[in-house]
């Protein structure tokens, strides 16, 4: 199937959304823009965030009565795929999936909702903590009397965000609080990532923070938002993989060795076909997952679906970007050629919210648990 076929088999509203998102990203400079931002300071472009907001991007999955477009995760996936194609550094999945995912479920009336949808601000979500061996551990971060103490790890979007949505332990169970980025006593350590972005490690020494929600609803909303973001990150990887494949296809058609295009060697042709098949399988799988998640209400089933999507997308993106470098030869190993940007972005998106091995494990465990329950 060609690109246009897949696009035209989509629902009309999603197709239009895809077209406008693609135009917007392309007009802004495509993958060249990502390179410029990386070389500048590794952050994202707040102006682009506002432009995306004007196109309705951040509110796509927010219900209409909460100020969004009410188009569901499937529409979020369209945006994520398009962001992935141009490896846009803006917090698209972070905002649609995590920050708005939490707020719309816990406090849809909060003024930050409208600001996020309007692209006026972006908020990072701090929910994981590092254990002794360096691996994720249970939350110990404390919130009491309006003050937050403890630390959080692996915070995506810590650079450039206006504040943090922090999941902490309150006096009566879990709480979601909002800490401003410039709060006194908030220390952010940045760990540089392969794609030029950074992961934040936050430490709070009794910093002021405002409680947004508390109780079991916080855990439930977090699980839902993480599932949403996981599936959307999968969609971003699908878009990234497709574009990496297209770049490679162009290259093997034009690069000549032994007096012919290297794409005329059968071994290269078969490799290209395999990569293309992988791409199509991943796109079909991930889009189906997003559509199913829109209809499904059982949190466990939604989480399992998200795992299915991320497992597939990570496997695909890793394989495609690595083979793409190989098929480019030495130029593929340079920074000058875009394909390396895709490889690096794939590394970061794969590690975020769990890689393929992790999600296959989660998927299987969920399947077993479901079997046992029946």
């Amino acid at each position, binding site marked *: 199937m060609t690109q246009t076929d897949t696009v035209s088999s989509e629902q009309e509203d999603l197709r239009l959304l895809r077209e406008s998102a693609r135009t917007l990203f392309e007009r802004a400079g495509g993958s060249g823009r990502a390179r410029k931002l990386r070389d500048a300071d590794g952050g994202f472009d707040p102006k682009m965030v506002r432009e995306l907001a004007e196109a309705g991007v951040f509110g796509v999955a927010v219900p209409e009565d909460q100020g969004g477009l009410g188009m569901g995760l499937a529409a979020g996936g369209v945006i994520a795929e398009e962001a992935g194609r141009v490896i846009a550094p803006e917090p698209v999945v972070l905002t649609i999936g995590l920050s708005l995912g939490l707020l719309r479920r816990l406090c849809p009336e909060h003024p930050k909702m409208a600001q996020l949808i309007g692209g006026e601000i972006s908020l990072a979500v701090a929910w994981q903590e590092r254990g002794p*061996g360096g691996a994720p551990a249970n939350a110990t971060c404390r919130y009491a009397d309006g003050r937050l103490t403890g630390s959080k790890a692996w915070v995506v979007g810590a650079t450039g965000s206006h504040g943090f949505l922090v999941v902490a332990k309150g006096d009566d169970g879990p709480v979601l609080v909002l800490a401003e980025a410039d709060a006194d006593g908030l220390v952010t350590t940045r760990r540089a990532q392969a794609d030029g972005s950074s992961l934040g490690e936050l430490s709070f020494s009794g910093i002021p923070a405002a409680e947004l929600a508390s109780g079991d609803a916080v855990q439930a909303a977090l699980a839902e938002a993480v599932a949403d973001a996981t599936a959307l990150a999968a969609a971003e990887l699908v878009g990234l993989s497709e574009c990496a494949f297209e770049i490679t296809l162009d290259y093997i058609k034009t690069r000549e*060795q*032994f007096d012919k295009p290297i794409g005329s060697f059968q071994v290269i042709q078969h490799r290209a076909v395999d990569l293309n098949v992988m791409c199509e399988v991943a796109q079909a799988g991930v889009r189906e997952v997003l559509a199913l998640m829109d209809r499904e209400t059982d949190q466990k089933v939604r989480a399992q679906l998200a795992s299915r999507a991320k497992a597939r997308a990570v496997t695909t993106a890793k394989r495609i970007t690595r083979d793409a470098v190989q098929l480019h*030869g030495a130029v593929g190993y340079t920074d000058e050629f875009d394909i390396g940007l895709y490889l690096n972005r794939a590394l970061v998106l794969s*590690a975020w919210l769990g*890689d393929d091995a992790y999600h296959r*494990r989660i998927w299987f465990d969920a399947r077993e648990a479901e079997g046992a329950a029946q």
Partner: protein
Amino acid sequence: MTDWNATSDADFRKEVRQFFEAEYPEELRHLPHRPKFAEIEHWHRKLHAKGWVAPAWPAEYGGMGLNAAKLLIFYEEQQRWGVNRGRDMGVQMVGPLIIKFGTQEQKDYWLPRILSCEDIWCQGYSEPGAGSDLANLRTRAEIDGGEFVINGQKIWTTMAHDATHIFMLVRTDPDAPKKQQGISFLLAPMDQPGVEVRTITTLSGETEFCEVFFDNARTPSENLVGELNKGWTMAKALLSFERIFIGSPSLAQNALGQLESFARGRGAFDDPVFRDRFAQAALDVEDHAALYARFADQLKRGETLGADVSMLKIWVTECFQRITELMIEAAGPDGGTIGPLQVGNVSVDVLASFYKARPTTIYGGSNEIQRNILSKAVLGLPG
């Protein structure tokens, strides 16, 4: 001069190990990047004083004169202790070529300078239009009085920005009936107006390789090694040695060691799937080493290696890549993080290993090209 080959393997290993452990600077162990000469100069001096710069060269040229068995031990120990190979293109590539094909004057002049690193070499083979199809190279060298005048461009020249000399394949007869004919092997100084070096940044942000432009660059005609227009055959003669070197288990073994300590520290072995994948990688490395030993034995018996040596490179480079991919998996949410990751008292630069593994299937004859060689020259498939 010590006849190392008369020493028992065990004693030799002990001696090499002791020297590395006592003398090799701790901060240079397992360097994640290719060092510039200045960074390792101090170590090179020690090695030079000891007479250990060129383990494979015959003793008469200042080498250690090691036979294949001792050589493997030397490399194993070097690897085990994380001793950097240094700027070894002179020792590994030009030196052996000069020893085999050079004149007495060339040997007397160049070899001591290679050993002392007075000259630091880079390899100028590839060009923009001549990668896998190396014979397609276009850089011209024309005789003008007592000199060759060089015009053209080389690319992917590793560490050219930190080299004093380049050994290169150049076209000296553009009218030869076959591309492989009319190519010569030349040595040229880099420090001259006609040579311009531009570094190329890799996708991991390193500057390891370069473009080298020649605009009426000059080199004395006595810097031709071997016969005019016979460079291709000579370069090929070096290849089988290069291929066993590039197919040696060391990179994969080293990475496996790093993977093991990292995965253990991270608790990755709690997962039976990860254990299985690790075991697979470990066995891939072990059995490759057995195959490698078979080829090494051939060398020890003084036989020349056949085209089948290519299988070593295919196996070990792909295995190396899988091992570094497992490191990333073990790193979990830190899998996209640049720089060393600390677990307990070890620190492992997961991404550096991953990046290092990527081009091993591209350089030294890409793995696709190696497979072509095996299918034709070993399996006898038509085409």
